């Protein structure tokens, strides 16, 4: 089908990701990858190329700055030889570092980790060694929040990512750290993190995304797949700290099974424009998904967060709390939906978006939503937007604290209840320190 047969307002745009670029990408992959994976990538490319870019009338893109969503001028970046600064000041059991889509280093720091059957490896290795595990879980969940085109782009151009599998009953004490860097102007990266927490296992993963230079124009199209099997406890902390000229799309999918618990906390600091979609599926009784997010938006940044909590079984629980601190001329969008399936009785779902306006020029948009088909449920949702009271500001100033230090203090005060939900003090401190770097710029 040629583009001219489509109405002009819905024309499909591939930008820099042409059919030739895709062929070049396939040719660059190592030999021996499973045929089904290559086929899936080809199908994904077709979906990407034929899907239109979002338009204003798409409900899933309401309030988004569509003119910023350009795919032109990007290319798969060359390999990186310099050592990225891969440290977040916490003790870890293993560490994977990716730079420009390729593995940079892999360290297993807990000597017992592999003996206990824990796999911390690259997706490429996992595709060779554990193809069935990867096939079952990798990008297996639907894209329901509007970014089907970008999810397809991710799948088509995905080079490598992290694969973590924790076997039944194994508890990994220290977090596993994944560091993903983009380097160079025009670099397009497609990070992926796949975590499968086996029955009654316990693991914490910290996923960091950053650029080696703050001013480089980059594109990041990432995704993660989190699976918590029966009774598993999975904690996921994502830290998005891309270059301030980056365009970022991230799609997260969480599947929670019987009596399992997933706690995810996404910290959003970087990028010029960042879209973050998060889907939680509560598939069996006792499943609990805690979805947390903290955003510090400044300058002209836009953070666009779309969430979906789907309760597919009775006695499931979800608890979403997204907090945005907005400075200068920044914008945020939160759109959340809770869906309760007809037989998901005794669902307990909560959804809250809170915005702290630290500037009169900032703009926060909030669209909370519910779609309940069961009759015996407890669902609450709400959104609040609060401005700093001038008397509060004067009080802080009268103690010698200037506007920028006051903003920092108030932001931390605002974030405190979310940070306190982390059970690890070390992680709490590491997150605080990272947030602080944004105020030191």
């Amino acid at each position, binding site marked *: 089908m040629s583009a001219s047969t489509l109405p002009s307002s819905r024309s499909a745009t591939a930008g820099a990701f042409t059919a030739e670029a895709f062929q070049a990408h396939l040719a660059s992959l190592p030999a021996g990858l499973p045929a089904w994976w290559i086929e899936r990538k080809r199908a994904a490319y077709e979906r990407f190329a034929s899907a239109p870019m979002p338009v204003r009338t798409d409900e899933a893109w309401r309030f988004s700055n569509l003119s910023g969503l350009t795919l032109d001028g990007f290319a798969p970046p060359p390999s990186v030889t310099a050592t990225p600064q891969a440290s977040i000041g916490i003790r870890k059991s293993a560490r994977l570092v990716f730079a420009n889509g390729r593995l940079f280093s892999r360290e297993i720091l807990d000597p017992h980790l592999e003996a206990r059957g824990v796999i911390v490896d690259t997706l490429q290795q996992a595709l060779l060694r554990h193809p069935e595990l990867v096939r079952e879980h990798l990008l297996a969940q639907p894209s329901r929040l509007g970014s089907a085109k970008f999810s397809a782009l991710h799948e088509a151009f995905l080079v490598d990512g992290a694969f973590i599998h924790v076997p039944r009953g194994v508890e990994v004490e220290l977090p596993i750290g994944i560091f993903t860097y983009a380097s160079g102007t025009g670099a397009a990266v497609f990070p992926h993190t796949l975590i499968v927490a086996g029955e009654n296992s316990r693991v914490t993963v910290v996923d960091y995304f950053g650029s080696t230079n703050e001013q480089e124009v980059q594109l990041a199209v990432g995704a993660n797949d989190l699976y918590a099997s029966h009774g598993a406890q999975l904690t996921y902390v994502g830290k998005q700290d891309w270059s301030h000229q980056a365009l970022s799309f991230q799609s997260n999918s969480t599947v929670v099974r019987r009596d399992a618990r997933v706690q995810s906390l996404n910290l959003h600091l970087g990028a010029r424009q960042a879209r973050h979609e998060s889907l939680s599926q509560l598939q069996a009784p006792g499943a609990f998904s805690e979805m947390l997010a903290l955003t510090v938006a400044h300058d002209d940044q836009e953070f666009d967060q779309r969430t979906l909590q789907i309760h597919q079984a009775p006695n499931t629980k979800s608890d979403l709390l997204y907090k945005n601190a907005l400075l200068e001329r920044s914008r945020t969008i939160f759109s959340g939906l809770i869906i309760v399936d007809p037989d998901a009785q005794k669902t307990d779902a909560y959804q809250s978006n809170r915005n702290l306006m630290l500037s009169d020029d900032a703009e926060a948009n909030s669209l909370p939503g519910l779609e309940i088909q069961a009759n015996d449920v407890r669902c609450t949702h709400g959104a609040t937007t609060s401005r700093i009271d001038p008397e509060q500001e*004067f009080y802080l100033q009268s*103690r*010698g*604290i*200037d*506007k920028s*230090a006051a903003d920092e*203090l*108030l932001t931390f*005060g605002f974030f405190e209840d979310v940070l306190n939900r982390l059970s690890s003090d070390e992680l709490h401190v590491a997150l605080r320190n990272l947030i602080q770097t944004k105020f030191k710029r």
Partner: protein
Amino acid sequence: MSSLVIQDLHVSIGDKEIVKGLSLTIRSGEVHAIMGPNGTGKSTLAKVAAGHPDYTVTKGDILLDGASILEKEADERARAGLFLAFQYPSEIPGVSIANFLRAAVQARLPEGEEIDATAYYKRLYAKMDMLKIDRKFTSRAVNEGFSGGEKKRCEILQMAMLEPKFALMDETDSGLDIDALRIVAEGVNALRGPNLGVLLITHYQRLLNYIVPDFVHVMYDGRIVKSGDKSLALELEAKGYDWVKKELALANA
């Protein structure tokens, strides 16, 4: 020796003139009390000196150690050595007293210098011990859910930590029962010394039983109309503000 000099100060909020030509000099080591009926401009004086953005100085000047502070922002004035103890301190949800004070102490350090956390907590605990404040206090959010007495003690603790040259204490006694008043007054007395000048703003004489001033000024209709020593406060207590008003009327007749 520092000085805070207020010269022929005129202050308006919107079109309304509230302070109408007030002059006052405070030196280090001195405690001045300003008394007067409600609505006479006492609190405005404290807020305008601290740099509250709602007020406009239309005439006159405020000099700290000889230099005008009127062009300085509130935070700059605070770092220069002014401290306002609020009548109604704001609540800062989620921000602990320890972190709040830490930010205030950090703000006074030279650019690029990081606060020494160990030394900071040592000093904070020493000040709390001196003011007989429980250490658990530091982890509470600033003024959130505090009783009137706790809010005022929090103000005194901040004053103790920030060691200002001049403290402007706005109706520190308001809303306090006699026990709380005594505790707060003990705190202020403990901080009194040759390096601190204090301006106590109060409606009632009773605070001055606990914090004995060196000078007492009576403020009425935007100016100081009578000054004296501590005996003036007692005379006011006995005769009431009507006495001042009558004297003024006679003088203006």
